[in-house]
């Protein structure tokens, strides 16, 4: 009897401690050697393996295949009947930069000024945002977090969603330069400018952008000449804006341009022809299906969503859902993204719609894994289940495009992530709020 009481006290203490621990995510991740066995492995780049084995060693995937000797040092995870996928990549998100969009002091994605290539999303990325755990437990393990304002908003960063500092989370600090071209077709129904005004402003804004880029090219040229042979030359004055453009002009960092309607897309295709020293990505591209051939011919990859209402009254209701598939069929490399912040976790469902409406499951899966990895130049580390790549993956009890599927375990950079988030903690606390001594 006394023993039982002591047991009860210990249990209560344990649960009590557990309850206080849940106020924050204090569970430690696992790290080391893991063997995931028995699962259907969706490698993305090398087909599907039934009842396969994945070995994780530290930050990396050590093995993907059917048979492997699993030594005692591996922690085994039996995933029989489950499915393993590479971590999904949301290629267009405000995660980490915006905590609560309606509270301006928590919004860090829009710096003042028209040309800000030297602003880094990396710098303002808050590793402790409540939205990050909410996102990663849903199988989205990496995002492109982007700034948005002016003609050049700054640089977006490719960020893994586990870590305690931007430094430890950054896959690529300079993931992309974010750029906005003016629209020659006006802003739509809310735009009350006259046609002449729209044209004038368009041309003026475009000239400012062209002038800025020409200046940056000149700066780059001067610097390159100085660097190749500093003797007998005066070092050009340092300019942080111009300096930040150099990796872009070298073609190392792609430029994302947000375009949506048909005319904007065609204007942008025209414009980039005169700027072929840089690599471009289109974002938004809601009317891409109207000019899919032209986009494919221009060789520009695309970041797009599916869950929005048609852009024109007379368009078929399915067009937003079909848009990624129609572009892919024309030969465009399409990444499906969330274009969201706190609900970046819905990236799989955006892709699910693309899959259902013409893109097919296989291509839609690539659109949230290997394609965004390739587009942002991180495919050597992310985007598929291959030995030697970073261990970003998750185990699910079914198809991750299905809203009813549960994501059971997530790994990021080899870390076995505690499957805890604010949403789960609130569920645990309030499901049976008044239960006492249970």
């Amino acid at each position: 009897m006394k023993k039982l009481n002591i047991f009860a006290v210990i249990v209560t203490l344990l649960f009590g401690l557990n309850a206080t621990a849940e106020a924050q995510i204090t569970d430690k991740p696992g790290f080391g050697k893991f063997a995931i066995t028995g699962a259907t492995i969706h490698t993305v780049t090398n087909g599907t393996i039934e009842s396969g084995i994945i070995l994780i060693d530290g930050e990396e995937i050590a093995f993907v295949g059917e048979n492997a000797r699993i030594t005692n040092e591996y922690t085994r995870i039996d995933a029989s009947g489950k499915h393993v996928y590479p971590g999904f990549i949301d290629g267009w998100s405000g995660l980490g930069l915006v905590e609560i969009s309606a509270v301006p002091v928590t919004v860090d994605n829009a710096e003042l000024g028209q040309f800000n290539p030297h602003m880094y999303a990396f710098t303002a990325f808050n590793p402790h945002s409540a939205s990050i755990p909410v996102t990663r437990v849903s199988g989205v393990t990496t995002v492109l977090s982007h700034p948005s304002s002016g003609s050049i908003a700054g640089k977006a960063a490719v960020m893994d969603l586990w870590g305690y500092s931007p430094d430890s989370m950054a896959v690529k600090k300079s993931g992309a330069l974010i750029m906005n071209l003016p629209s020659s077709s006006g802003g739509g129904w809310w735009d009350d400018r006259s046609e002449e005004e729209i044209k004038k402003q368009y041309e003026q804004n475009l000239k400012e952008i062209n002038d800025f880029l020409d200046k940056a090219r000149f700066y780059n040229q001067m610097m390159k000449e100085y660097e190749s042979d500093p003797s007998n030359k005066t070092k050009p004055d340092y300019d942080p804006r111009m300096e930040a453009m150099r990796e872009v002009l070298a073609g190392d960092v792609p430029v994302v341009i947000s375009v949506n309607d048909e005319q904007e897309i065609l204007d942008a295709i025209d414009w980039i022809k005169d700027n072929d020293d840089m690599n471009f990505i289109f974002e938004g591209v809601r009317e891409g299906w109207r000019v899919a051939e032209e986009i494919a011919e221009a060789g520009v990859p695309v970041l797009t969503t599916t869950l929005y209402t048609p852009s024109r009254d007379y368009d078929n209701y399915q067009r937003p859902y079909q848009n990624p598939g129609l572009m892919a069929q024309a030969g465009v490399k399409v990444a499906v993204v969330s274009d969201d912040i706190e609900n970046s976790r819905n990236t799989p469902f955006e892709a699910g719609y693309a899959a259902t409406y013409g893109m097919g499951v296989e291509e839609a899966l690539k659109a949230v894994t290997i394609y965004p990895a390739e587009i942002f130049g991180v495919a050597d580390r992310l985007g598929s289940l291959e030995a030697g790549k970073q261990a970003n993956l998750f185990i699910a009890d079914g198809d991750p495009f299905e809203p009813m599927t549960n994501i059971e375990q997530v790994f990021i950079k080899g870390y076995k992530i505690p499957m805890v988030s604010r949403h789960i903690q609130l569920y645990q606390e309030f499901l049976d709020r008044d239960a006492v001594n249970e």
Partner: protein
Amino acid sequence: MKKLITLCLILAFSTTAYAQEKGSVLIQNATVITVTNGDLEETDVLIRDGIIREIGKDLNAPRGVETVDATGKFVMPGIIDAHSHLNGVDINEARNPVTAEVTMEESVDPNEVGIYHALAGGATTIHLMHGSANVIGGQGETLKLRYGVSQEEMKFENAKRTIKFALGENPTRVHGQGSGVQPRTRMGVEQVVRGHFDEALDYKRKREAYLEAKAQYDRRSRGTPPVPVAENLRYEVLNDIIEGEIFVHCHSYRADEILMLMRVFNDYGIENYTFQHANEAFKVANELAKNGAMTSVFSDWWAYKFEVYYSTAYNASILNANGVVNSINSDNDQLLRTLNHEAAKVVRYGDTSVNDAIKMITLHPAIQLGIDDRVGSIEEGKHGDVVVWDGHPLSIYSKAEMTFVDGIKYFDLANDPDDMRIQINPGSDFDDGSNFRKIVDNRDEDACIQDTFILLQDQAQTHAHN
């Protein structure tokens, strides 16, 4: 006598002229998700003259009734959205914290092509609501998505009257912050509600006394006529709320403000009400259940404003597990197209059963709108508002193939032309941007305070720049 018969005939004809067109169809061999009586395999549903007449196996099609072979397909009740602004012409009468006299009845655009888009997502009924600018906003209108009929004909006949209330950030921003009148705080919100109920009760007492005195005076035709108490529509509506003739749908987020309104409603004896959005309802699920209060929530929206920061996608499952009648709503023209998958998320977040999740977009919103005796499940005697899906409706790979309202097919995937506009502006076919729609994507937190930007100039400018 002959005259009377003629009159009756005229009356009969005039009522049929106004009555809705009804259709008949026999849907055969489907998996029928009845909602109230499980899923029935290989079952037929016969709809005649707009009403579900028979559910069973191997039913015969009455002469002239179209049949639909639904082998391998699913039939589900039409989706009901308890919170929509889809085809509202104006949404907010935002110049006063209380505008109970206003109604959405005359603010319905029957030509909005979004109605067709919603039908294509399996929706058949929406609750068209006033916005959330005011503590006590305008009255709502429950509409059937009969695309191509008049404003009047869209109305859900004899639906319960409803009204919008709003607590928290929106009314305090619009009125306190925007116009410098109460409420500026959640303290003020409570007193705006109580104050107006008290004034309405006083009005009723005085008005009734006056009407009685006037009747007496009119009968006797002597003495001094009583001082008139003018009819006040706002107070009349508030009294209708207190007397239970109008269901309240209250925009709310935080647990404390939800408790506040339940206290107020208990004091005034108000019983039928639903908290809309209610992101923190899960924190007071017990109190909600005890009061018989209902909720209508988003599946997973959160963190877009401070009052939804401490919320969870598990909200619906917690409420359901604690016995609260909960629905999943859209409040958004895109989510309205995909409410089946919003319901599916409730299964992911908290293991709610598939049937309970489906209830949240069919029977439960019907209860909240006072129309559950007619729609929300597939039962004999209920309206023929059903959708044929090519797979299980909660799967991401399923599409609605046919949507019936009153037995009439309003959407047919096999016959789905691109241009489904009813009223075409001759100038709008040019690609000059004039025919572009406002695109609604997955988050539009300000939908509820449309038309209020005149009061929030600083915000209007922010929006113009975004």
